């Protein structure tokens, strides 16, 4: 399809309208001119016919006068008027006139001819012989003939009026039709321009509407572009093409951005994985390291030391070694197993024995367990690290009077384990850091830290309030572990 500039289309349209209007104007002028020319021709001829009669009368008057005055001016007057009449007759004659009219003209022409020849003969005779009989006969005949002219002019007039009647009818018909044609043409032009304008405006507004709805689509985030039909107007097609291209480019850009974001995300994931792997490697390395010390060897050695202590009668030593041995065994075996509150408490008791041995009366442990809760299942090795933490970070630095209390009680369908100390406590920042797992208290521990315990509890029970901590600097720390009794969550920890 040939593309056409909007400007040229509009220009062409206006030009066409202009031409049509000029045509209408020209047509009207031509019609008026044509009709007017015919009317004026008609009137001219009528005046001419009237003039013929007057000319003949004047000619005869001069002719008659000549015979008394013999003046050349009269003769010339007679001649002039005669010729004027003949000229007028020739003027009105036309092969388009009616036959009757032409017949009458011919009659009058012949009559004038006869008049002239008789008149000339009379003048000739008059000049040669004076007023004799021949001269008189011609004179009378000429005047007689001239007297008939009035009748012939009248007939001519009548014929011409008859003829004009028909001409007038045709003229009237033409005038009326001309008017009708002009009106018709005007109506046609109006209809024409109406159709054109309607089509033209639709042709412009339709693609504009299309563009607008597409813009809306894009605003809504839909870059899917159906191919737009070209309308053939250069500017609009250009606009459409540009719009489509723009939409495509935006879409490509967004795709590109999304892709790079995805890549970055994947990269981060990869890094995280790498980190985990590293951690696992570290742990594995630690485990390997740990496994290098043969626990059996350690236990056997401890047993041997315990038996030696018995043999030597060192009961305290034996108790101490047994406690250490028990603690070690438990911590090695129960770290990845479920346990019961009772077992946990007994391990804490072994730990207490050891610590009591170390610190004598500087520290006091209170353990208070509701009997029915001894069988509640908990992850292994959660209690001892907390007690140890309370000891290491809360009490150890105190000179005297440190109290660590472990309480297990039922509360609202939950089993609450409370570990409280009256040590130095923690600042708010540190507390938060601990809860978020960002802080690990360092020190002299059996191995498993608080962070590990919190992590495991949260992982296992999948709730935030399983572990809560209250602490105030200088006053002590209270740790709550809330374990639901109804649900036996221990199974999941296999």
């Amino acid at each position: 399809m040939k593309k056409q500039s909007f400007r040229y289309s509009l220009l062409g349209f206006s030009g066409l309208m202009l031409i049509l209007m000029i045509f209408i104007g020209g047509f009207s002028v031509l019609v008026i001119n044509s009709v007017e020319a015919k009317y004026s021709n008609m009137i001219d001829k009528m005046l001419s016919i009237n003039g013929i009669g007057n000319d003949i009368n004047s000619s005869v008057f001069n002719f008659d006068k000549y015979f008394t005055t013999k003046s050349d001016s009269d003769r010339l007057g007679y001649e002039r008027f005669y010729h004027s009449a003949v000229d007028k007759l020739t003027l009105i004659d036309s092969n388009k006139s009616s036959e009757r009219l032409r017949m009458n003209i011919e009659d009058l022409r012949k009559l004038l001819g006869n008049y002239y020849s008789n008149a000339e003969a009379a003048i000739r005779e008059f000049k040669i012989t004076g007023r004799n009989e021949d001269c008189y006969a011609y004179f009378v005949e000429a005047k007689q003939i001239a007297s008939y002219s009035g009748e012939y002019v009248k007939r001519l007039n009548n014929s011409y009026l008859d003829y004009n009647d028909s001409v007038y009818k045709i003229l009237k018909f033409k005038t009326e039709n001309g008017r009708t044609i002009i009106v018709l043409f005007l109506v046609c032009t109006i209809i024409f321009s109406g159709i054109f304008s309607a089509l033209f405006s639709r042709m412009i507004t339709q693609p504009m509407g299309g563009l607008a709805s597409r813009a809306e689509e894009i605003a809504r985030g839909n870059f899917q572009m159906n191919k737009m039909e070209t309308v053939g107007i250069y500017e609009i097609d250009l606009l459409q093409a540009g719009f489509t291209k723009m939409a495509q480019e935006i879409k490509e850009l967004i795709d590109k951005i999304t892709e790079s974001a995805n890549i970055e995300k994947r990269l981060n994931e990869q890094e995280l994985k790498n980190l985990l792997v590293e951690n696992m490697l570290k742990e594995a390395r630690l485990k390997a390291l740990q496994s290098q010390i043969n626990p059996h060897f350690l236990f056997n050695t401890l047993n041997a030391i315990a038996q030696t202590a018995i043999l030597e009668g060192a009961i305290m030593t034996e108790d101490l070694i047994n406690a250490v041995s028990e603690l070690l065994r438990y911590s090695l075996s129960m770290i990845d197993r479920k346990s019961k509150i009772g077992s946990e408490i007994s391990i804490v008791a072994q730990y207490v024995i050891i610590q009591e041995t170390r610190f004598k009366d500087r520290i006091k442990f209170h353990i208070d367990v509701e009997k029915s809760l001894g069988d509640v299942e908990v992850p292994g090795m959660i209690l001892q690290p907390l007690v140890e933490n309370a000891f290491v970070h809360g009490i150890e630095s105190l000179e005297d009077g440190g109290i660590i209390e472990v309480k297990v009680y039922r509360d609202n369908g939950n089993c609450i384990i409370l570990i409280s100390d009256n040590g130095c406590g923690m600042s708010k920042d540190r507390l938060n850091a601990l809860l978020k797992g960002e802080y690990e208290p360092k020190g002299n521990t059996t191995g498993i830290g608080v962070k590990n315990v919190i992590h495991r509890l949260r992982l296992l029970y999948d709730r935030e309030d399983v572990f809560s901590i209250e602490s105030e600097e200088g006053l002590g720390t209270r740790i709550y572990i809330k374990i639901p009794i109804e649900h036996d969550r221990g199974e999941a920890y296999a």
Partner: protein
Amino acid sequence: MKIYRTLLFAAIIMVASFTAIYFYMFSDNATPTKAIFSKKRILVLAEVYQNPYWQIIRKGAEDAAANRGCVIEYEGPQTQSLSESLKIFDMGIAASVDGILTYIEQERSYDAIIKKATDRSIPVITLDADAKNSSRNAYVGTDNIEAGKQAGIKLTDITYGKAEIGIIMAGKTITSQEDRVRGFRDYIRKFNGMKIIATESSDSDVIEAELVVRHMLDLHPELTALYCTSSVDGIGAARAVMDTGRNGKISIVCFDDLPETLDYIRHGVINASIVQKPYDIGYDSVNLVMDMLGGKKCNGQYLKGIQVVDKDNVNNYNTEKGEIN
């Protein structure tokens, strides 16, 4: 864009068609030329211009003229007038017409003017009424003596040879009328019961004819038959008879087949009409004069026959081509 092309096309068609209409309607497709009028002009001089009988002759003449390529100048006095007729004749000569077909009002009065025409080699043919002793070239018309005789035969038949007759003529000095009366009179002379009581002229005018007949009926209440020698006399007579309530008591024989005459025949007011052939007279005379102008020698009398029309054949007699309604 297709629509634009269509619209453009439509506009062009519109402009073109209107231009075509303009040129068809308003342009002078031929500039008038001063071609000389070359047709022969034939003057037909009627008895009376408006006379219906003469209008039929005119129609015949004009039809012939159309065939022969000449034009007819139909003229005639508004009422019967010798001087007017002679003037028109002279005007024709003054205008150098190519041929003159004329009615003869009075035979001798036309001799001089006919001679003037023939001297200028304008052929003159007399129509309907003849001027035998003039220099006229030919006569075309009804055999009026024969027509009068036929009228006599018809009236004798109708009245069973017994009638008091009044005669109405278009003019007592008109040759054709005189001939019709002569033929009539010569025939009825043989019958003793047929008597001519009165003879009057109508001057070829319907109203005058009616008045003349009324007057005649007043003067001669014994009248039983009317013989009318021209077309208008019959109508005038019929009107007078109707108006005076003598319908059926008076037999009328008249001339020609004007529509009113035929109506009266249908209604039984007029008993019979001697129908001439005016169309033929007009038609043939124009052909004759054109033949003469073509160099053919045509002299003498060209007589046309007549028909008798009565109630029996009024609806199916051979109607003249040029009948005027």
